[in-house]
């Protein structure tokens, strides 16, 4: 499949009063047309920053994209002028944010906030855009769209707001949709509805989807390929199948083993990953995970591992993973 979006060696740093935070430090990932990939990792590992960098929404100062390319259908988004970038945002690439409560303008009606992008990108008249907005609201499952469109964000529940965000994002039929932890702020039942909604829409419109989440259960069900991020870098990448059953990086192993499994007896306590996520201003030498890694060898603390193909179409940034079989056992 031809790649719709290729992120190559992307680095985004933040200049803070205590030093330079390397939030995203040389990241590679790509997504094909119509494909759904997942970006997984603990909070603070750079998932969201990498997504915002794609849309160049990093506030500057303090943030700055220091290196890398973001090829979208062949053109590098980082080289585009502000004007050209604006044509991409919302029309070609759209984004759904994590915090529904604060991501909608409190003083504008819901209908207005959806029809805005339509008027801009699709050059629709106010009335057509409003009618289309109503259709979208129904599409995302908001009852009495006619009346609710005139309401304001504070009159909607968290789940409903997230549906509005989805309606807003898909309004201009973007080629790529980035969902940054879309369901974190809502309860489980709504979570499933929203994800089914997004999957339905992306499949129907042939939209590629980058799903950013720390919820491994969601990844398994919806994403074809998975990128695991740690300390601003991709540490493992492969098909969901492969990564779940034959993880090639100790961090992924740790993540998977900290998820409760139905087929395990109830009493076994979950294993956690030791220590704290690393300080991105003074990252540990070598592999950033080595201080917390149960299988670390002296080389780990000296040289920084790059992504290597340890299994067919299955990459990992870990020296230990090169030995076969891996010291950690497969997950049945």
């Amino acid at each position, binding site marked *: 499949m031809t790649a719709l979006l290729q992120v190559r060696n992307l680095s985004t740093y933040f200049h803070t009063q205590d030093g330079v935070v390397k939030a995203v430090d040389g990241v590679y990932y790509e997504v094909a047309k119509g494909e759904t990939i997942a970006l997984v990792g603990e909070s603070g590992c750079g998932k969201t920053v990498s997504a915002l960098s794609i*849309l160049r*929404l990093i506030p500057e100062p303090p943030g700055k994209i220091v290196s890398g390319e973001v090829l979208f259908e062949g053109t590098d988004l980082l080289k585009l002028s*502000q004007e050209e970038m*604006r*044509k*991409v*945002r*919302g*029309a070609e690439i*759209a*984004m759904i*944010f994590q*915090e529904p409560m*604060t*991501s*909608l*303008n*409190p*003083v*504008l009606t819901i209908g207005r906030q959806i029809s*805005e*992008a339509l008027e*801009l*990108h699709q050059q629709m008249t106010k009335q057509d855009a409003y009618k289309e907005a109503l259709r979208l609201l129904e599409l995302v499952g908001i009852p009495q769209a006619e009346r609710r469109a005139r309401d*304001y964000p*504070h009159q909607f529940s968290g789940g409903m707001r997230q549906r509005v*965000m989805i309606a*807003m994002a898909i309004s201009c039929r973007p080629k790529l949709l980035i969902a940054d932890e879309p369901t974190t702020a809502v309860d489980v039942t709504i979570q499933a509805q929203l994800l089914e909604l997004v999957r339905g829409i992306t499949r129907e419109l042939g939209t590629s989807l980058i799903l950013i989440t720390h919820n491994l259960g969601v990844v398994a069900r919806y994403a074809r390929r998975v990128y695991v991020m740690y300390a601003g870098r991709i540490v493992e990448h492969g098909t969901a199948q492969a990564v779940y059953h034959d993880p090639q990086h100790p961090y992924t192993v740790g993540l998977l083993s900290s998820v409760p499994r139905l087929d395990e007896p109830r009493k076994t306590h979950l294993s956690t990953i030791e220590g704290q996520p690393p300080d991105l201003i003074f990252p540990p030498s070598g592999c950033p995970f080595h201080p917390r890694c149960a299988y670390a060898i002296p080389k780990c603390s000296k040289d920084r591992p790059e992504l290597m193909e340890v299994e067919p179409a299955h990459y990992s940034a870990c020296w230990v993973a090169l030995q076969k079989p891996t010291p950690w056992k497969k997950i049945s």
Partner: protein
Amino acid sequence: MHKYLLRRILWLVPVLLAVAFITFSLMHLVPGGPWDREKALAPQVVENLNRKYGLDKPLFVQFGNFLWNALRGDLGVSYSFQDRGVTQILLSGLPKTATLGVIAFFLAILIGIPFGMAAALKQNSAVDYASVFFATIFASIPGFVLGILIMIIFSVVLHLLPTGGWGNVKHLIMPSFALAALPAAYIARITRASMLEVMRQDYVRTARAKGLAERIVLLRHILRNALIPVMTIAGPELAFLISGSFIIENLFSIPGVGRLFVQGVFARDYGLIMGSILFYAFAVAIVNLIVDILYAVVDPRIRYE
């Protein structure tokens, strides 16, 4: 909403009553009466004057008479202005003060908000410092000094504008600028502060993620939210401007209502004091009501039961 409006208007009565009572009592507690002068009047003349204006009656009777007449729109008679009716004096002065006040208010907005926005958008840049600097300079020169400086430059040196009085548009320019200086500086500062606050909100990032032009993001998303705190302070500034400023009207000899209260106090012109303070209280209460209603219009989160 209408129930709220009605309730607020009904509340006007106790507010005005309270203001009337406070002013009336303070007025009679303050030493010195309307007939005390450096060249003392004969006691008999003073007695006749008190009788003529009903000041010989007990205080609560006077207060009662005042309220009863005020209900019928007659705010009593002014001793220091040829026995003209206070209502009539206020009505003849109101258009002048109101015109000046409204012009000054819009000037303050047209200068203040853009300056504030520019300062916020280009924080810690030349524009930011320039706006802080001008806001401070205008804020730190008292009205009468700023007024006389403008008058010296445009009337005495350049002979472009008349120094004062009332007549055509040329009489409006200098006083309205002098009046607008402080509110403009104030609005600029508050706009800058609240713009900085709003620009950090998530919904601004959402707006940008939709690919909206920066101009639309600024006007439709940022400004609409940023202007709410500005409105809180714009209201009282408007009330202050509408009621007129003693200093500017005195300096530019504008026959408005702004100087009536102060002149009234210094002349112990009881009729004028009561009339002008009630008018001012009424104007302030109405403006505050308007601002509160505009609140609900601009910020849907605020609902009035």
